[in-house]
């Protein structure tokens, strides 16, 4: 199984005639079994098509043409129009919205998230690359062209959550090379306020039978890691988690932002050092290098399987062969 999306997920692309959106549409159609993109929206461009996907003026027209509810939308419109596009998707009963656009003011994001919460919809992003279920489907630019995505991602037991789109692929590729495939990888976005944080995605992975371990990429700034640590302790998380923390140098440079808009050390709690300590307190191992992640995960999984074998889950071959550590 997977989380958030699957082979049958239907979605639209808002802003589909933009250059990036045209590429992204091609990539998603080509990847795995081929995404079910049922329409695209660009106001004033009704009647055109993008790689065979019909273009409409409104989300309501997409829904009407599809003849029923649409599961998701990838929103890739300029920052000034993003809030409106997301509101339009939510009010047309779309339940999963991947917001690709970057540089959206925080207040707009917070408004989108609040409306989504009211309507039972979920937002991934903004400033993210979307969601991929290896070999099955991808929703967003994650992993790039189908050929490149297929090279980096492989199906398996690890859930990946990352504040950096590019690092989602780097980490998944490292896992793939070590024989650890991914159940679902989610690029959650690098802004200060995002639709879905680590802690908010954990219940999905926790409920997913395929997922046996979680790998996260994290950065200084914000309290998302503290929130995850709390979640892990409060919910007695069944899975081992391995984290990688980039931007440690920023601890020496308070008030400066690098990498993503959300990375800024403002107080004591959001430094890299503080976050590493917090994660460690919750039993989350923080790897020094990305290349260490697979071995750490394998040994944690092996220890995990020995101590409390989850019912109905078969022991992977590499565990039976003994941990390399």
């Amino acid at each position, binding site marked *: 199984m997977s989380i958030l999306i699957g082979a049958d997920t239907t979605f639209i692309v808002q802003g589909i005639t933009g250059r990036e959106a045209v590429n992204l549409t091609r990539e998603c159609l080509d990847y795995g079994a081929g995404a079910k993109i049922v329409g695209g929206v660009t106001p004033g461009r009704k009647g055109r098509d993008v790689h065979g996907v019909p273009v409409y003026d409104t989300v309501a027209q997409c829904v009407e043409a599809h003849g029923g509810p649409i599961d998701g939308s990838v929103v890739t419109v300029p920052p*000034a129009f993003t809030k409106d596009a997301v509101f339009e998707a939510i009010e047309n009963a779309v339940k999963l919205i991947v917001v690709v656009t970057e*540089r*959206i*003011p*925080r*207040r707009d*994001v*917070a*408004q989108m*998230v*609040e*409306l989504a919460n*009211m309507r039972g919809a979920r937002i991934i992003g903004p400033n993210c690359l979307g969601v991929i279920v290896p070999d099955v489907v991808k929703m967003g*630019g994650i*992993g*790039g*062209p189908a050929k*490149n*995505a297929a090279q*980096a991602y492989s199906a398996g037991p690890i859930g990946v959550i*990352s*504040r*950096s*789109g*590019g*690092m989602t*692929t*780097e980490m998944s*590729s*490292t896992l793939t*090379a070590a024989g650890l495939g991914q159940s679902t990888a989610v690029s959650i976005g*690098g802004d*200060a*306020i995002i639709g879905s*944080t680590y802690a908010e995605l954990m219940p999905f992975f926790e409920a997913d039978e395929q997922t046996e371990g979680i790998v996260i*990429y994290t*950065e200084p700034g*914000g*309290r*998302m890691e503290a*929130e995850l640590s709390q979640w892990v302790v409060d919910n007695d998380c069944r899975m081992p988690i391995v984290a*990688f923390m*980039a*931007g*440690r*140098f920023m601890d020496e*440079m*308070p*008030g*400066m932002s*690098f*990498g*993503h*808009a959300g*990375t800024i050390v403002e*107080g004591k709690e959001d430094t890299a050092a503080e976050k590493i300590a917090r994660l460690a307190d919750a039993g989350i191992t923080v790897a*020094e*290098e*990305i*290349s260490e992640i697979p071995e750490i995960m394998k040994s944690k999984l092996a220890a995990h399987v020995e101590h409390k074998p989850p019912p109905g889950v078969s022991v992977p071959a590499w565990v039976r062969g003994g941990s390399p550590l």
Partner: protein
Amino acid sequence: MRFFEYEAREIVKRAGIPVTDFGFTTDAAEARTIAERIGGPTVIKSQVLTGGRMKAGGVKFADTPEQAEAHAADILELEINGHMPRGVLVDPKADVKQEYYAGVVWDGTAKKPVILFSDMGGIDIEEVAEQHPDHVGRVHISNLLPISDYQAKECIAQTGVTGRALQRLTPIVRSLAQLFVDNDMVLAEINPLCEMKDGTFVALDAHMDMESEARGRHKGLLKDLGVGDDETRLAREPTDFELAGEEVDGADHRGVAGNVTEFDGNIGLVIGAGGGSLTLFDAVRAHGGEPANYCEIGGNPSVHKACGLAKLVLTKPGVDKIAVMMSIVSNTRVDIVARGVIKACLELGFDPAEKIAIFRIPGAWEEEGFKILEKYGIEYADRSVSMHEAARRAVVKITGPDAVAAAAEAGS
């Protein structure tokens, strides 16, 4: 984007919150005129975007207009934490009965603004929150529903404030929350918010920080305050090298060569993207290397842009070689970056194999890219070489194996 105190007070005033009859000037003689207009004792405050100005002598009290002029002249020349003041603020000396704190910030976990209030104003709110948690009120506000007086009232009442003070403070705190929302602030703070001996309530000092991404929506306000489009208001002023980096980025709309930041070391970095740069910069330092710069390339930069950035870094004094590294790319093309950095070496009259310590960018169009790199004899690595290993190789080549060994020793 942070505002100076005199600007923050102006924003507060525009929101209908009472302020003192202050004046701002860049000229000592005018400070005297303002003091004369105020009549009576004044406070002269340095206008700098840094803390600790009281300790540094950036705040002085004057009994007469002559004294105000003399203090203003001193303060205008006084550097605080590396910042020269923008000017001075001349304020009537306040007769304070009670100091309060009122602030609004984002709560990233709740994804809503939160109003903070304390009856222990004038000091650092984080300190109050730690030592006297029952003296800090907190109320979250909706992003969609209108802000209402009761929310401010509840927040204030949490600290035990009642009676006339509660009545008078409520509209002030509500207005502060409204201005936070209306102006896309990430911080709006009045500290202290004072009850004066004459019974009036006045904002005596204010801190405002507007989200940079939203600047375009507040052109009118910024124009009225005289904030130029080129004012970044970052924690420190950009260096010439950093400005040259912005020029490289701005010269071509294709792709990004962003966040070019100067450091003291000797290892030139052409790195990307957002998370990749953070990872690689850490990796170079973990192996004992000292970066000469930070940067983020991405979004499929043109040959021209990659070349411009590589040239800038290669010509930085103290830099002998560059390391060209990224996390796996799917949008940026490996071959285009390769051509850009090679072009930079050739145009500067260098041998690319000599000047490029390592090239580690796997991903889209890598076969084409690696072919070009091979042709010029440049050491390159595919995804089987980790980002940290690539960084280690760069440090070995540029700083020497001893530095790497020492770093490994220190780390173990």
